[in-house]
């Protein structure tokens, strides 16, 4: 099984499209760091302008933690699109390349194939988030150093002590991996239905866009649907930056996302088991 996973993992990383996500993060995040280095203080002054009328603000809020938080806020919404590029190709890519029949004639079960492929997709998703963590948090701390984290919400400002931040980021990145695994599972599911990778990639992107738009429009009918959209839970990594931590809400999100992964993987496994391989 481990050998099979290694083979699938290598297959994923032999395709250049796998690196698009890493390149995108590797280019975009340093650009954000550069922009923050040049203009970050102005942004911070703008956010805290009203506070400065009444308070003397002493110390450095422009630090690696704050910038990583901003980056995670901005980029987390777009990471799913990078995940679909690879996950949508995991099964359909075999059909496109005409290697499906060759693959299943090997002395391994279809279940082993599907598990190893899914694990390869999961590993890619996790590595992409890890890469994001290294580029935003790691590089941010090197350039700007550590400090208190300012979290500005609509009616609340939370300032976390710098000793109280790192664990929140680690859990938030862990949660982001879980969220991206749902996207991976969805693309993997679509990938099992067709024989060309473009379809699953576009379909997964379309589903995510539609769900995000529905979540964003604040009308009653969409508000009712919202709890059933997985995109609503993907961004719940932000709950780790609440004080006090709402453990029940976080566990609920983990439960919902895990449920999606299990369900989507289960359906995909059933489809693949029964699939009549003709290519």
């Amino acid at each position, binding site marked *: 099984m481990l050998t099979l996973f290694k083979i699938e993992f290598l297959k994923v990383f032999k395709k250049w499209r796998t690196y698009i996500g890493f390149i995108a993060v590797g280019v975009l995040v340093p650009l954000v760091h550069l922009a923050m280095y040049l203009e970050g203080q102005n942004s911070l002054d*703008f*956010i805290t*302008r*009203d*506070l400065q*009328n*009444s*308070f*003397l*603000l*002493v*110390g*450095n*809020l422009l630090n690696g933690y704050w910038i990583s938080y901003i980056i995670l*806020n*901005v980029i987390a919404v777009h990471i799913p699109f990078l995940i679909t590029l690879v996950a949508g190709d995991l099964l359909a890519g075999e059909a496109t390349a005409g290697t499906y029949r060759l693959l299943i004639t090997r002395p391994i079960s279809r279940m082993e194939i599907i598990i190893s492929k899914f694990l390869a997709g999961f590993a890619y998703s996790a590595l992409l988030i890890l890469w994001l963590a290294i580029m935003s948090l790691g590089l941010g701390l090197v350039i700007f150093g550590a*400090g*208190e984290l*300012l979290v*500005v*919400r*609509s*009616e*609340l*400002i*939370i*300032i*976390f*002590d*710098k000793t*109280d931040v790192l664990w929140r980021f680690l859990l938030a990145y862990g949660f982001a991996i879980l969220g991206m695994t749902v996207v991976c599972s969805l693309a993997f599911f679509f990938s099992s239905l067709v024989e060309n990778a473009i379809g699953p990639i576009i379909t997964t992107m379309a589903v995510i866009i539609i769900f995000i738009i529905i979540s*964003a429009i604040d009308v009653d009918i969409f508000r009712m649907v919202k709890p059933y959209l997985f995109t609503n839970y993907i*961004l719940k990594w*932000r709950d780790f930056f*609440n*004080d006090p931590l*709402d453990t029940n809400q976080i566990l609920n999100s983990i439960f919902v996302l895990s449920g999606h992964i299990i369900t989507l993987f289960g359906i995909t496994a059933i489809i693949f088991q029964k699939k009549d391989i003709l290519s």
Partner: protein
Amino acid sequence: MLIRIIGLILLLIDPGFSQDKDPEIILERVKEEFKRIENYKADITVKVDIPFIKMPDRRATLYFKQPDKIHIESEGFAMLPKEGIKFSPISLFETEHTSFYEREEKIGDINVAVVKVIPLNDKSDLVLSTLWIDPIKNLILKVESSRKPTGTFVIEFDYTLIEKGLYMPESIEFTFSVDPMMFHSRNPREMKIDENKGSEDTSRVKTGKVFLYYSNYEVNRGVPDSLFNADK
């Protein structure tokens, strides 16, 4: 009749009576007392109790030099009320103003003189200040002040004896009105995603408090000007 006239004469020539009730003399004494502190350094602990802000208690070192130079050093981020930390009787009384003695009152066991100060200069941020002054030690125990545009705030002082006859604040309680709009996010993304808080309280102005606790005073031992130059 003769007794009344003698009483009136005694009343007029008694310096104690006129000076105790003369607001300008009271304020001048406070100013003179404050001028004895040429400079100081102190460790401060800041505790913030504001409905819309959550932050841990912070520690900082405060440097002061007459007339109004302030420098604050903090290992981490600290948020200090401007009016509380920069409060100075000198700056309060230096603008053209009128004052009147309102009444005598008790704060704890201390008989205090309540004096109102109204600036005569239209350009002054200060609208009205009420001061509760200990006329024996010449210390301000409480200030209620209305300023533009920050609104009304109250500062209450607790003093500690540093050396013979020299009192310094041990704690300051700064109370002010908080407009929730002050803390509304300037980040539309944040406003959109935050689902944790309702909006039913946004129209209500609330009261915020900041507590400053002073310790490890070093008074009149010299503070270099270079510290304050760095802040400019």
